[in-house]
Every structure is written in C-alpha cells, then in structure tokens.
C-alpha cells in the first residue's frame, strides 16, 4: 500500500516537473538567452525611446546580443547604451546602430548594420554611427506640420 502511494507521488512530482520544464523551454525564452562569452560595446543615442535593459540586439533580424545597461552621459547629454555582443560574432568598426520597434506596437530593440571596414569592434569600443528611436509624437507633429503647409500653399479643399 505504501509502495503504491510512493509510485503515485513520484508520478505526480514528475508530472509537475515536466510541466515546469515544458514552460521553461517551450514557453519562455530560456533557450534563446543562454549565450556564452560576450564582449561589451557602447553606443550613444540622442533618444532611446522605450528601449529597456535586457532588450534584444539583432543584426539581419538574428539575435546577436543583449542590452546590458542604459545610462546618461551628462557631458554629451546623450544616452549611453552598453551592449553585450556574442563573442563568436564580429562587426566592422564602422557599423551603425539603430533603435527599432518590433512590430507596430512592439518593444524596442537595437538593430546593428554592418559597415565596410576591415577592423572589427573590440571590447569596450564605441559605435560611432547611431540613429535614435522613432518617437510617435514627433511623427504626428511632423505630419500635421506638413499637412498645414500643404493646406496653406495650395489645395484649399481640406475642411
């Protein structure tokens, strides 16, 4: 009788652990984020938008690193983003970094465009060419500004 109970309990525990493993591997991003050695690279941005630490760093759409920390440089009045790149991937020294949005309302991530130089970025190097995040309010005000410009100069059909 006791053995019967032990078997059932063992089965239950296995089932529960199995569920946890399923959740860890298939549901969460555990496998994605298990990277090996990394090297750090800095990039300065005028506006990082909603970029958060641990955000993805992708090149050609493939995950190549993670944002480690985001700080503020009060000499240049710019955001300084520290990125951990996977050691097995090298980028030319003149590569550029952009802050992009995943999907229409998705999270912000960093996109890396490779440059053309022969030398590669090393640990603690700086990415010099950056493009800030697209902020929605700026686009809207730009749009309205353009629209009002059109209305003023030509077409009077806009009511």
């Amino acid at each position, binding site marked *: 009788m006791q053995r019967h109970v032990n078997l059932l*309990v063992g089965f239950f525990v296995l*089932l529960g*652990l199995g*569920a946890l493993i399923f*959740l*860890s591997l298939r*549901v*969460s991003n555990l496998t994605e*984020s298990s990277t090996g050695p990394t090297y750090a690279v800095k990039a300065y941005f005028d506006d990082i938008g909603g970029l958060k630490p641990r955000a993805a760093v992708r090149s050609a759409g493939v995950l190549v690193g993670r944002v480690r920390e985001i700080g503020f440089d009060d000499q240049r009045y710019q955001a300084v983003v520290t990125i951990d790149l996977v050691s097995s991937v090298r980028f030319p020294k003149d590569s550029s970094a952009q802050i992009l949005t995943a*999907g229409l309302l998705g999270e912000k991530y960093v996109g890396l465009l490779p440059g053309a130089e022969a030398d590669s970025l090393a640990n603690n190097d700086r990415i010099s060419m950056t493009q800030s995040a697209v902020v929605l309010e700026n686009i809207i005000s730009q749009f309205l500004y353009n629209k009002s410009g059109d209305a003023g100069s030509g077409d009077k059909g806009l009511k």
Partner: protein
Amino acid sequence: MINAALNQVARLGASSLVFVEALGRLAVLFARLVLRLPAVLRRPGLIGSQIHFLGNHSLAIILVSGLFVGLVLGLQGYYTLRRYGSEEALGLLVALSLLRELGPVVAALLFAGRAGTSLTAEIGLMKAGEQLSALEAMAVDPITRILGPRFVGGLAAMPLLAALFSAVGVMGGWFVAVVLIGVDAGAFWSQMSSGVEFWDDLMNGVIKSIVFGLIVTLVALYMGYECRPTPDGVARATTLTVVAGSLAVLGFDFVLTALMFGSL
C-alpha cells in the same frame, strides 16, 4: 443613542483585537512548524503520503480548470487582439497571463477550496475525537507528527500544481488559437517564447506559487488546530479556511506583483 454608537465602536475594537490575537497565534504556529522542520523532514514517508493526499487528489480539478482557463484566455484574447491586428501575439498574451498571475493565483484558490478544506476538516475532527490529546498523552508531539508533514506536503505540492495549471492552460490557449481559430502556429509559439522571460515571468510565478502554498497550507492547518472541537466548530473552520486563505492569497498577490513587476 450615543450608547448604541459607542457599543458598536467597542465591539469593532474588540473584534479587531480578536483578529490581531488570531494573527499572533498563526505566527506562533508558523514558528513552531519551522522549528520542528528538521524532525519532520526525517519522516519522508509521512510527507510523501501528504503530497499524495494534497497533490495527487487535486490533479483532476487543477488540470480541468487550467484547461478551461486556457481555452477562455485564447478566445477572449483573440477577440481583443484582433481589434489591433495583433492576433499573432495571442500566444504571448496567454502565456504571460498564466505564468505571472492566473497560474499561481487560481491554482492557489482551488487548492484552498479542495485541499485546504480537507486539511482543516481532518485536523478539526482529530481534535474533536481527542486524537490530538491522545498523541500528546503518548508522548508524541502533534505538531511534528500530524501538522508538520501536512505543511511540507502542501508547500511541495502547490508549485507543481501551479506549473501544471499554467502548462495545461497554454495548451488550451494553443488549441483555441491554432486549431480552432487558425492563428499561425509558428507565430503563436515564437512570439510567446521570445516574449516570456525565464526569470522575470516564469520564476516569479513559481516564487508566487510557493508563497501561496505556504499561506494556504498554514491557514488550513491553523483553522483545524484552533477550531472548537464540535461539529459546527469544524464546519465554521472549513469555511474560514476558504475565505481567509483566498483573501490572503489575493492580498499577497498584489504585494508580490508590485514588488516583482513594478520595476519592469
């Protein structure tokens, strides 16, 4: 008339004191359980029986409820996300809802109702039948022999049940989304697995379920141990287990959520 009002205030004060006293006794029981833990852990057979009693016997309700919650999440999530053209994020929605909140909380509420009441009734009836006094008279400590294994069993079973609830829920969501509605399976899983964080979402949910397991089991044991040893005393105690346990779970859920997810 002033007297009547003053009487009400006095009664309120008195019942607050009773509540505070009960809280104190609960804390004392918790301390006694923790102190006796080494002795309890030396009897794995007893703990195993309790995991069977509390865990295995709750499997049916947890799995079925998890499935239904997952199905509903898939359905409701789809209707809402479709408005913004983001149906592909359905997998992410279902997974996050379950892992962060619904898995630990609903599983804990169900656990309080099913396993918690069994615990309370069992201990209360043992108290009424003088079995606890008999144990003491036989130089056996009821805390170590009866309450301890149940405490450890509940604590061990609860996270497993919550994980099962979430896993089955995700499958339910998948079924509605991919099989019934026709959302792209690849998008469903990839959006989910890239958006669900192992530490921030999954492990926080596990931590929540451990805390909830502790609360529900402790409340259930307390109500049974302290109830009046009469039939209606036991009945009141089981009701209180569900009410107090559920409220405590929901209250702690708020605190834990604020602590864990507030900074993200």
